[in-house]
């Protein structure tokens, strides 16, 4: 077990260094110096600066990482709500559709639903919410915390600022989750040990609870990185459509205006976040089903 954890820690550190190197490349490629040696020197300089936490100043003049960090909590709040909704919808849907007959019956419908791009889901939610619930989404709304809105009973603002974006993210996450769950379930149902255990006299419920369920949960945890990548993309889209000033929109605006200091800072935040989620997912999976390799 320790060998697996050490390997995971080494992978984590290697990936972190790789992520810093990757984001260091951006400003250097955007304004490449003449010649290979100046290129390498500037890249090394950037790498060391970013490694020590100096991302430079954004186009607005503020330290890039300070601005990115200030916008990150809103994104994390949306992501958190999105994860909760995705788990609620995705796990129930995935288990319902994991039975072979259900897969056959629901497959065409699911294909259509999962073919809808996330930004269309967001637009559809606004289209439904505006006339039905009189929810108004506008760029002028202040970026208040969800707790303040709920405390003041401002449900309209809470709906447009948090719940609708979170629902958009949740739908994207649920689509990813139910697919992972169905794949994991299909692999568990087809595992060769099942027939052996049946011959040994174990009941189907016993086999499913003691052997199949841990494998399914471990497979989902190993896919945590893919899940969070889907959610981050969906968060960028939700923040854009619902006019939320989170870190994802900050990244899009910074990239559009070629503000590479800000783009680098936000991109590294997302990369590290993904890395941590993937690392924790791998560790938890190795707890549940110990394997030789992560």
């Amino acid at each position, binding site marked *: 077990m320790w060998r697996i954890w050490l390997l995971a820690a080494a992978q984590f550190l*290697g*990936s972190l260094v*790789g*992520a810093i*190197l*990757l984001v260091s490349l*951006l400003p250097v*490629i*955007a304004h490449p110096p003449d010649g290979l040696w100046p290129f390498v020197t500037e890249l090394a300089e950037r790498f060391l600066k970013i490694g020590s936490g100096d991302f430079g100043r954004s186009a607005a003049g503020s330290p890039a990482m300070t601005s990115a960090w200030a916008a990150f909590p809103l994104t994390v709040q949306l992501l958190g709500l999105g994860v909760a909704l995705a788990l609620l919808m995705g796990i129930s849907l995935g288990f319902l559709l994991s039975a072979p007959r259900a*897969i*056959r019956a*629901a*497959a*065409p419908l*699911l*294909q*259509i639903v*999962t*073919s*809808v*791009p*996330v*930004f*269309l889901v967001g*637009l559809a939610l*606004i*289209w439904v919410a*505006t*006339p039905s619930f009189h929810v108004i989404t506008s760029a002028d709304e202040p970026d208040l915390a969800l707790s303040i809105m709920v405390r003041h009973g401002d449900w309209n603002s809470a709906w447009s600022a948090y719940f609708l974006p979170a629902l958009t993210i949740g739908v994207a996450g649920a689509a990813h989750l139910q*697919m992972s769950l*169905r*794949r994991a379930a*299909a692999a568990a149902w087809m595992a060769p040990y099942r027939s052996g255990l049946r011959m040994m006299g174990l009941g189907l419920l016993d086999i499913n609870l003691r052997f199949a369920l841990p494998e399914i949960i471990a497979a989902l945890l190993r896919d945590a*990185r893919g899940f969070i*990548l*889907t959610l*981050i*993309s969906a968060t*960028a*889209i939700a923040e*854009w459509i619902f006019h939320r000033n989170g870190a994802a929109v900050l*990244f*899009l605006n910074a*990239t*559009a205006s*070629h503000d590479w200091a800000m*783009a680098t800072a936000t*991109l590294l935040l*997302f*990369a590290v976040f*993904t*890395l941590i989620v*993937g690392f924790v997912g791998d560790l938890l999976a190795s707890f549940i089903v110990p394997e030789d390799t992560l």
Partner: protein
Amino acid sequence: MSGSLSYFGAGRHVSNLEVVSRAAGVGGLGLLAVIVALNNVIARAPAGATYIAKRLLPPGSDAVMGSDALGRDIMSETVHALAVSFSSAAVSTAIAIFIGALAGFAAVRLPLRMGAAVRVISGILRMIPTLFLAVVLVALSSREFFAISVGLAICPEVFNAGFDRASSLARSRHAMYARASGIPGLTLLRRDLVYELRMNIVNVTGRALASSATILATISFFGFGAIPPHRDLGLLIAEAQTSYLSNWWCALFPALALVVLVLCARLAATDDSGQPS
């Protein structure tokens, strides 16, 4: 219509659902390709032509899919935008397959474990969402090359899948027998590639096409993609965003065209469980 495909010694059951889904997907893509090829014939107005019809006309006999605030015929605009989206997605898919899938497949056989090193780099790129990578590549190059940028952004994902698939093939029983009997690595690679192309090319292409079409539309929706007057479906929907609450037809028909394009690509890549593999 149900049968069994033998692939590297393992029998794979092909259900009726898979056959029907694939046929629907490939047929749908074929139909879309015909519409795209004949877009100037099918559309009654050239791309971006204003005041063809009255402003904000709902769907009816005068304009089948209605008109927008500038009097543009939505049906014509949707057909032209579909042509731009489809051709851009085809370019991105071609790049993803040639650079991503084939390189991933060949990288396993590179000497000095160079393939594993490339796989590590590709793994690091996968820490960033494909959408973000596409946006960065467009910003670093130019919006004119947005289809190429999206193709390159998808490459790490396709490369990893190709590499992992080729790794499992390289460790398979037939590969061990081949190596033991002195068959050169290049011959083995050629043999695996031929089988892979024959069995999985539609799957890989369908998946890459669905991803490309979705990401292209999304980055155009953000304003990083297609440049007017060559508007694609994402840009068409973005332009309708300000008025679609009252004039739903401005966004609905381009959105439906996009969903149909992605759906056909995903159906073409359907595996036995009725979902994209």
